[in-house]
């Protein structure tokens, strides 16, 4: 393929690419703006139950915690 044709393809790719990037990120801007609206009302105290909530069902993590709690309890009894 001659360079001229390639250049035309490259120019088309440049145009398509920049349009694609701008369209995509513009939609993301819209989405994020709405995201703040969506998430805003419940930023108060009661509705953030997930924050730093220790994985109560997480086996390994909780595993350690429970076992070590049990051991502590067990040892201090003696």
């Amino acid at each position, binding site marked *: 393929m001659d360079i001229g044709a390639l250049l035309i393809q490259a120019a*088309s790719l440049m145009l398509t690419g920049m349009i694609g990037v701008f369209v995509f990120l513009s939609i993301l801007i819209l989405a994020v703006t709405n995201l703040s609206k969506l998430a805003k009302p419940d930023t108060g105290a009661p509705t953030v139950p997930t924050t730093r909530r220790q994985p109560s*069902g997480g*086996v390994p993590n*909780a595993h*350690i915690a*429970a*076992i070590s709690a049990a051991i502590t309890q*067990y040892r201090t009894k003696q």
Partner: protein
Amino acid sequence: MDGLLNLWQATGIANFTLPALIMMAVGCGLLYLAIAKGFEPLLLVPIGFGAILTNIPVAGLADPGGLLYYVYYIGIDSGVFPLLIFMGVGAMTDFSALIANPRMLFLGAAAQFGIFATLFGAIALNYVPGFEFTLKDASAIAIIGGADGPTAIFLASKLAPELLGAIAVAAYSYMALVPIIQPPIMRLLTTPEERSIAMPQLRVVSKKEKILFPLMVLSLTILFLPSATPLVGMFCLGNLMRECGVVDRLSNTAQNELINITTIFLGLAVGSKLAAEHFLTVETLGILLLGALAFSIGTASGVYMAKLMNRLSSNPINPLVGAAGVSAVPMAARVVNKVGLESNPHNFLLMHAMGPNVAGVLGSAVAAGILLALVG
């Protein structure tokens, strides 16, 4: 504008199928349960995310050459990841409570009835049109009753890989639901007096016993059930590294970095089995149903066995601790403790429930070995 058209034809919008959308919603549902409800988040976050990634059109992340494909074939098809997780869990487990009171192993044995009854139930489900479970399928489904993630994934990868996604999701979901599933059954099968029984304090266990215990478990497994040695062996290696006291570097790595890395990949790999064409089947509904059955039967068998032992034994046994025999470490033991406190606010059962709880891990590994030997 040929380029923009090509770009449009490569979008997800132009390629979506309804089943893929449903599976992405399932993935989001798992993420919601994990993050907002705290359900087994260490596994359900990567599984849910993996389910979303797997069902993305065009991208082919779970097709040959994709990331999730590699992760699945290297880690689960080979059986390596569940075994590494099991080694790490072994390195995290303290068997003191069980060594001090070995009779608790009966509770861990009884709770496995959840597995074998469900196996029967899965075959019986074949009478319903649409279900055609083989014995291998039924065995892989039944192991959900073992309430042990890596065991379930390992057995399913050997016996019924096409059901692995549903089985793993059911296993982890029900493990997370233990605080909801178990208490009604426990209250139904016991009287308030039984639930108030205090148990004698456990004796101190020596370092030497703790070191010899994993070796003894491994020896018996070698003698009687070699097919369980991949699972039991890696579990015992982890526990030996923990207890022997001379390889703390290795033990710490096994129970932290190595298990964390493996957990991320295991979760993604399980998620790669949640492709719409394999998951959105009537079998999945059956598996979810049978899984709930398995947990309930396992809980009930454990409680009945504890009641029986309480009657036969000179030492009092609170029947609640039987429920911990399903494993689901340490949730089941905590649930026992909580339900016990309702009847007797001074009766801390946690340590007593740890015995049947870790016994349940061994019990389901043994059950998996038996199924591998007879059906695999």
